[in-house]
């Protein structure tokens, strides 16, 4: 029996018209589905909702312990006054979101690779790892935000001076939109860097978050740092984000050079920084994942 010859179907694999998000695989609907699925998974894993004690630890005990540490140190310097309390409370509260969003994507990728061993299966789906990472980061940031509200609430109880007439809601809304967007972008990029490393990669996001904590004026004015570090700090979106939240909640600007800048300028810098990061982050993510794939770190556990 002779087989009829048939011409092979021509498929253009290079076309990006069906992929408006550039380095993403699949289309927007795929990305949204992946993000939502990942967010729901993160909500279940990260929330400790079934373990009240640990919920207490992460939402309340640990953040307040941090705050207590900083306030105790302030008391040494004889600087425990409402203004300094407000400065530290807001900085500490917002930085929890920074820390969570920065570490979230890395921990998600490493968890999936080392603990749950599912990253190869996720990667083999038509969806991209990017929305998966973003989903995890967003939920971690959201849970940290709950904790941030608690910290600010406690701060108000112990003498933090709130803005007369209540918080500047429009300003708060803008900075709380831009800030998390920038930090999720940074977290995603950091995740793609760390997934190229061995199991020690767990510690790097914490180190980066620690560096950012030092540089962004979270618990002390930027002017305290040496000049070179001040410039680095000023280049970080979270510095402007925290300052924006301070102005929205406390009604006063920070002491030092940062406080002398106008609010519109602050918003402009924050917006530019956020836009740059959100544009660069997917590209950086793609590059990092591709390199990890080349090195073979996507489909094998590297735990030593």
């Amino acid at each position, binding site marked *: 029996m002779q087989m009829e010859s048939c011409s092979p179907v021509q498929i253009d694999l290079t076309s990006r018209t069906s992929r408006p998000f550039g380095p993403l695989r699949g289309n927007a609907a795929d990305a949204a589905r992946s993000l939502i699925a990942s967010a729901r998974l993160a909500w279940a894993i990260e929330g400790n909702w079934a373990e009240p004690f640990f919920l207490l630890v992460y939402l309340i005990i640990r953040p307040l*312990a941090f705050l207590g*540490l900083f306030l105790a140190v302030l008391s040494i310097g004889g600087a425990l006054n409402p203004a300094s309390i407000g400065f530290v409370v807001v900085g500490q509260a917002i930085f929890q979101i920074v820390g969570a969003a920065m570490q979230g994507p890395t921990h998600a990728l490493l968890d999936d690779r080392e603990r749950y061993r599912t990253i190869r299966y996720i990667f083999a789906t038509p969806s991209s790892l990017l929305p998966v990472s973003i989903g995890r980061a967003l939920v971690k940031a959201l849970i940290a935000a709950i904790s941030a509200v608690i910290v600010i609430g406690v701060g108000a109880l112990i003498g933090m001076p709130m803005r007369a007439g209540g918080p500047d809601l429009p300003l708060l809304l803008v900075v709380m939109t831009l800030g998390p967007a920038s930090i999720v972008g940074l977290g995603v990029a950091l995740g793609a860097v760390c997934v190229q490393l061995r199991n020690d990669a767990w510690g790097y996001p914490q180190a980066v978050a620690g560096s950012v904590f030092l540089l962004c004026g979270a*618990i002390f004015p930027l002017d*305290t740092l040496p000049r070179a570090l001040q410039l680095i700090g000023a280049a970080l979106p979270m510095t402007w984000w925290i300052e924006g939240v301070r102005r929205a909640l406390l009604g006063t600007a920070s002491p030092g050079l940062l406080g002398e800048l106008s609010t519109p300028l602050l918003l402009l810098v924050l917006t530019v920084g956020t836009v740059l990061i959100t544009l660069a982050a997917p590209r950086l993510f793609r590059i990092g994942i591709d390199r990890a794939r080349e090195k073979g770190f996507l489909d094998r556990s590297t735990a030593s």
Partner: protein
Amino acid sequence: MSAAGVSKDLHARIYAETEWSLSHKLRHAAQSVVGRAYPRIFGMSREPSWLFFDLVFPTLGMCSFVFLLRSRGADEAWISATILASALLTFWTSVIWMMAGQFRWERDSGNMTLYITAPVGLGSIALGMAVGGAVGMAFRAGIIILGGSLLFGAQYEIREPLLLALTMLLGIAAMNALGVCLAAVFLVSGREADHLGDLLNEPMQLLGGLFAPVRSLGIFGLLAIGILPLAPAADAMRQLALPQLAATGLLPVPVELGILAVMFVVFSLLSHASLAYIERRGRADGKLLTRAD
């Protein structure tokens, strides 16, 4: 000789082989401690990342507190105290993750099975881990103090170096003994152990009076001095290394040293019970000692 006779001969020979003299047991215990300390001391330095984690990590936390103090115009002696506290913190962090949490890792990696079925005893393993960890952390602490002194000009006035060394040793020993006590809790907690570790980190830094004197915590400070080795160790070391801050101490140094000694004895006894509990419960329920199949 009959087969039965050969067999009983073999049994007698084997039984005799299992008789270990006291000197053999002591030598074995010492060898086991050294054996387990070995990976901690030599293995850890084989990862290039140790440079990053041992240098950068601790320095970051230290710098945050130093700049906070400087921004508020605190006395420079407190800068030195902060650096000292950061050095001590490395031991506490090691106790949480590399003592209390380590048995869980040993279980999950399969090492616990080998330890239990070997004639080694979990006590020797724990002691080896403590010794190895202390040596490793001592190096890290030294770098922090050196780095802090160079970066921030910290200065110390140590009038009683032997007393300071004894305080540090007792503090480290008591902390490690406490860590072993907590190992059972970590093992039983399963995956929640990570959360436990986080609970023992920052809250204990506050209660332990690391970066602010425990005296400022009032009744909580007194409680902390009584149950948390970190508190008397930090308080005493600050008084000994920075005499100008002696007035901020909660209790005189000899008293705090005595508390540390008692803590060491009590926690050592409890740690012995903790390890016995781990083995007993693990053999009874079949879950604690072996990773899930």
